[in-house]
């Protein structure tokens, strides 16, 4: 049987092999990220059925937890690492031809490292390793944001670096405080002993971690780096940043709050924060004229909804949140990828430059529309299934507090509908300008059409047959909610 550790070890090795492959053949090098992610996807999917029954615990160097560094490949971790690998694979295929200039070798290495970091975050069972993988993820993304080397990119990367570094240091302080209190770093071990510690010291370390991870998770008001970073990066990077990277931050918060601390008292606050994030994101997206900034703000909005659903603390709510992580990942990756070649074609990121795109790039436009409809939560696309699950969970709690928050949050959905459908109108119902700089290199090659098309097909298929992922959602929610089972699985008997 394959071990989940391969999910981290193999792509990590491949990432560092990439420059050496590049010495032998430059064209072979650009396929390396795709190969690494294909491997990850196959392994993660093959492990998933087993993990749905019980988490797979990997102990390194023969030590048993809590002493060892260990991986906990539970349903949630494997589901998310499958998602990371899937999106990573499709974006890597897209990147083969999309990335044309700049330091290509570094792109391939950093791209793979970013995804290794994300995979590590969702699989680790150890708080310090969580931090390490988180740093791998963040540092690769700082560099990738500035990949183009133009002033906007460098500025965005710099700002991201400053805020991200502050966030990381807060996390580190939080972990340090916690370690000083309980004397262990294994999440399961902390979870089992955290109940006996007095409140205040514990809470302060939690506050540090929430504020720290919140930066990467794009929670309001910690998300100011995101619009610049996501819009300045090349589209393939934006796709993984929005589709994968920010989810890792949110996963870290959920894992820390639910499993490590079992801190249910902070959940209502997180729910409020989620709704505020949702509204602020959607409001800012509404007036954007820059398509990539718009998509970035829309990501903030969706993250808010996910955070809100995570804070419901019910099995349906967390299933809905995980489902939305999946559906938003697919849709937002699709949107950024489709936008990438549209921008190549017109040379502008202005929404008005998309006029008449339905005729000039029919497949990209159609896929873009599918992605936009899915994000809005229209049936029969996957976004509907996930948003429906969340709304059902909220009403299932029967709490006036959550229902009121939801009703406020639904305003965000209306705003979202307004700006996305306006773009759809630009694509299809506005005439293309007469004299158009027709850039032939803007034509989307097969390596772009296939991933974008596949994402659209996935969105429709899962939308029609939500049972495909539905089976894994329940166990994934239990993975977070059921602390006792988590502790028992990791610590053994």
């Amino acid at each position, binding site marked *: 049987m394959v071990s989940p550790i391969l999910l981290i070890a193999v792509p990590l090795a491949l990432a560092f092999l990439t420059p050496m492959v590049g010495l032998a053949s430059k064209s072979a090098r650009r396929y390396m990220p795709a190969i690494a992610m294909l491997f990850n996807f196959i392994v993660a999917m093959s492990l998933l059925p087993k993990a749905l029954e019980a988490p797979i615990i990997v102990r390194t160097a023969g030590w048993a937890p809590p002493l060892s560094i260990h991986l906990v490949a539970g349903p949630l971790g494997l589901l998310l690492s499958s998602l990371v690998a899937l999106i990573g694979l499709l974006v890597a295929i897209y990147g083969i031809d999309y990335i044309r200039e700049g330091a290509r070798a570094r792109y391939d290495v950093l791209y793979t490292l970013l995804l290794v970091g994300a995979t590590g975050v969702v699989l680790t069972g150890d708080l310090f390793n969580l931090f390490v993988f988180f740093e791998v993820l963040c540092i690769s993304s700082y560099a990738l944001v500035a990949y183009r080397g133009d002033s906007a990119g460098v500025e965005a990367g*710099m*700002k991201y670096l*400053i*805020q991200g570094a*502050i*966030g990381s240091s*807060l996390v580190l302080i939080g972990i340090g405080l916690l370690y000083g209190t309980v004397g262990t770093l294994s999440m399961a071990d902390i979870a089992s002993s955290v109940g006996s510690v007095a409140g*205040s010291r514990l*809470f*302060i370390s939690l*506050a*540090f971690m*929430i*504020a720290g991870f*919140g930066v990467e998770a794009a929670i309001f*008001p*910690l998300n*100011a*780096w995101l*619009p610049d970073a996501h819009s300045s990066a090349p589209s393939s990077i934006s796709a993984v940043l929005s589709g994968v990277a920010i989810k890792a931050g949110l996963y870290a918060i959920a894992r820390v709050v639910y499993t490590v601390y079992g801190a249910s*008292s902070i959940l209502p*606050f997180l729910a409020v924060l989620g709704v505020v994030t949702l509204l*602020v994101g959607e*409001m*800012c997206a*509404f*007036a954007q004229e820059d398509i990539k900034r718009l998509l970035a703000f829309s990501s903030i909005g969706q993250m808010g909804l996910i955070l809100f659903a995570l804070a419901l603390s019910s099995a349906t709510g967390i299933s809905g949140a995980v489902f939305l992580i999946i559906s938003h990942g697919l849709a937002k990756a699709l949107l950024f990828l489709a936008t990438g070649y549209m921008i190549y074609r017109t040379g502008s990121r202005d929404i008005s430059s998309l006029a008449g795109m339905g005729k000039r790039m029919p497949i990209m436009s159609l896929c873009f529309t599918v992605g936009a*409809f899915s994000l*809005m939560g*229209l*049936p*029969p696309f996957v976004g*509907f299934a996930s948003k*429906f*699950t969340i*709304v*059902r969970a909220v*009403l*299932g709690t*029967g709490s006036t507090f959550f*229902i009121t928050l*939801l*009703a406020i949050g*639904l305003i965000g*959905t*209306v*705003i979202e*509908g*307004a700006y996305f*459908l*306006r773009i*759809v*109108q630009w694509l*299809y*119902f*506005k*005439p293309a300008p007469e004299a158009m700089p027709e850039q032939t290199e803007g034509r989307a090659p097969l390596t772009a059409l296939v991933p974008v098309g596949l994402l659209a097909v996935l969105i429709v298929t899962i939308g029609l047959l*939500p*049972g495909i992922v*539905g089976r894994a959602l329940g166990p994934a929610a239990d993975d977070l909610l059921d602390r006792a089972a988590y502790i028992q699985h990791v610590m053994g008997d």
Partner: protein
Amino acid sequence: MSAQGILITAFAGAGLSYALGLTSARLREVFAIVVSVLLVCLIAITHGQGAEHVYYPDFLGLDLVLRMDALAWFFAITVSMVGCLSVIFSLHYVRGKEKENFYYFALLLVNAAMLGIVLSGDLLSFFIFWEIMSWAAFLLISYKRGRALDAGLKYVIMSILGSCAMLLALLYLYANYNTLVISDLAQQIRSAAGGFPLWVMLAFALGFGIKCALIPLHTWLPDAHSEAPSPFSAVLSGILIKMGIYGFILVMYGVVGLKLLLEVGAPWLHFHTVLCWLGAITILIPTFIALLQDDAKRLLAWSSIGQIGYIMLAIGVATSLGLAGALFHTLNHAVFKALLFLAVGAVEYKTGGVRDLNRLGGLIRRMPVTFACALIGGLGLIGVPLTSGFVSKWLIYKTLITEGHPFLALAALVGTWGAILYVYKLLHNMFLGQLPEKYANLEAAPFSMQLPLMICGFIIVLFGILPGIPLSVIGGIVGTLGFEPVTATLTGFGPQIGPLNTLNLCAAFAGVLLVIVAFRGIAARPKPVSQDDSYAAGAAAPAGKYHHTVRFYDPLERMTGGYLRDWVDQFYLSAAGKAKGVFNGVRRIYTGDVRTYVMYIVALLTFLIFAHTAGWL
């Protein structure tokens, strides 16, 4: 043929028509018509069947159910009929325009989604098909570009708002009863008490009210109906807004049930009474606004809102006659409003897109068939005896009077007077008077445009003379919804409901006709004079100048115009403007200065720790 087969045909038809259109335009047109006609036939033969079956087990843990019953059949046949006619009309209307493939796909998809709505046996399927209908309709409304884009956005934003309310309502039901299957809900909700049914009904009313353009939720309709392509305006006005009516009937009588419904609301103000009064307002204001319109399609759009008022009023009365009247009027309005929109569409098509009533006239000589059909449609809208509109309005008046609602009855009557005025304005300004010279050589509309008109006209007269045909179906539906069934004879009603016999009306009509013919025979032969003579009394006059239709009801306009601005629309627009201002303000949170951002991070951390020490968290 089961409901499932019908839906598969409808949705597959929409998809295939797109695929076929890629190979041949002609093939697609034939296919679209075949599918539409086939759907009418398939639904027709399921008449009288009742079935309920699960077609998608375990969708997100819920079983999706389809059902066929009398109410569903009635709406399904109306939807498929009007849908079919609009597809036939579209043949020439969109030929040679761009995005034909998309047009047929979206039109068939809207029709399929509406069939899905009425055949749904559970509220989740209902909602899913509802949403598909909403976005497909949005795409079609935007089809003509220009101002249509704003109309489309306005429609879809209101529509999403309504959908959110509906979603909350249906999941509120689910949270309480753990099922969304309509028949199960109807069983379980009987024991409900307190404010629960009221909240559910209010949220549903928001969703349905927006779709059927109940005042004050109507503001999307005039823009959307006038900017959409005409065959789709017929669908929008004829059946799409009726989905809101279907929703109201389904939730009020199919789910909540008559007994509970009569108790919903405060003791001194019941939910259904409020609905009645909203219906009355929805009759009055839009009727007078319609009078002042110069755009033929806008006039019809406002008239649609007014007619929805009749239906809502009749539903709200909550009597068996009222519901029968509402259902019958739904059918009638679908037919005659489709006819009128298509007739305007035919004129628009031939004149190259003119729908300004001040620039048309005299078309009766060039388009006699269109005029004859439009006349029948107009008479049906007014509710002249021997048209179907008469019978449905008769039922509504009858129940209002017997139940003792004189003010509501008066509102309905005033609405009819207004209808006479605006129908006259519409028909006169398009077809009567002097023919502008540029239209002197206009040809009649092609047969594929006249055929739907003639079918609609035939239905209006047929159901006007033999109202027993639709009433036999409607009477049964009323019976299944917890009322006393309405029994009608083929030509009217028996004495237990009230004396209405269309045979007598026919006889009276024939008598009057005879008198006129006889009078004309006895009187002196009329002497034909040139048209200019009758206008200018023999004086020399330049041709083409004496057809005054501008400012048609000028004194009335001066009297009422000040009051009849669409206050609600202005309110929404200013609210939207304010919201945009707020959004722009919110954007300033992101100053672009990284020092501020760092401060935000520190502020959140400080707040968390402070909140903990203060004991909030």
